């Protein structure tokens, strides 16, 4: 987590940053890491790590490798690796990833879909 915070404030050379005064509307795609400190509306498709900083406001569907949310996201999130929702973040939407972490103090509304491996008899009960 320290890493992601550091990255949010001082992006590394590989991270693209959408600054706090910037708004993007449309679809964003790429293969590098991205830090959103401003506003993004539309859709984001990244094969890298996405950080929605505290000041970030995202109204978009996100498809990424991994994401750490400290700000606001309204939209569905599908990650191939992991989704982390930090304290103070506000996420409204459905999320799907093999690993999802919701920290205490995060605000989340929506569905979470991880692979849950249940023994057979319970699997039936679950459906």
């Amino acid at each position, binding site marked *: 987590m320290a890493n992601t915070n550091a990255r949010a404030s001082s992006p590394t050379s590989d991270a693209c940053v959408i600054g706090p005064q910037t708004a993007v*509307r449309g679809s964003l795609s790429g293969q590098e890491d991205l830090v959103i400190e401003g*506003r993004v*509306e*539309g859709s984001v498709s990244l094969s890298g790590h996405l950080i929605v900083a505290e000041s970030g*406001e995202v*109204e978009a*569907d996100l498809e990424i490798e991994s994401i750490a949310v400290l700000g*606001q996201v*309204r*939209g*569905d999130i599908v990650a191939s690796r992991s989704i982390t929702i930090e304290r103070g973040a*506000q996420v*409204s*939407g*459905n999320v799907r990833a093999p*690993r*999802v*972490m*919701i*920290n*205490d*103090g*995060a*605000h*989340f*509304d*929506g*569905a*979470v*879909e*991880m*692979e*849950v*491996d*249940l023994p057979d008899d*319970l699997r039936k*009960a*679950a459906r």
Partner: protein
Amino acid sequence: MTRQSPPTDEPSTLIGPGIFVRGRVSGEEDLHVEGRLEGSIELTETVYVATAGIVVATVQARDVVVSGVVVGNVTAEDSVTLNAGAKLVGDITAPRVIVADGAAFSGNVAMGGEPPPPRKERRQPTRRATPKPAAATRPAAKPSTKASKASPTRVAAIPTPRAARRDEGDDTVVVKHAEVDENKRSAGKKTAKSRKKAPPRARVPKPGKRRVGRR
């Protein structure tokens, strides 16, 4: 009889690993489940599902701490915590939800509680009845949406989340009846009311049915 209950001064109930309870369990003390429980749990205190515990039940308690398996909806007044190794299939309704790394979870999460605080440009989006800026009602919309924000006892469905999709490309959320009903109801501002009466809004899920919190 010596009680081998978990170290706590408060009374607590332990369902050991060799026990299978099927039915309704209710009470006013902590409950530790290390065995199997099917049915329903209604407690005023904390439910702990141990690593070996298997609960196939609707759970309602003040706090719920899961380290084992739970299949069923979980409602807590305070918090629901899924520890590493926990498996939960079902919906969670609680003001605080903590999902640790290593937990496996599939279901809806409803925190109810406060809407995201308005940020500078933040318009209270999609309360489903938020007025279109076209009319001067837009500024009025904000306070009303907040006011009308009922505490969501939402039916947990998993509908197409982005009902707000239609917002794309639009900064503001649209509602027509504000204009239409303006005369009918002085409460043109009360989006809540308009929501109820609004026939035009066919595509909007009924209040209380919002899947994705649109506050």
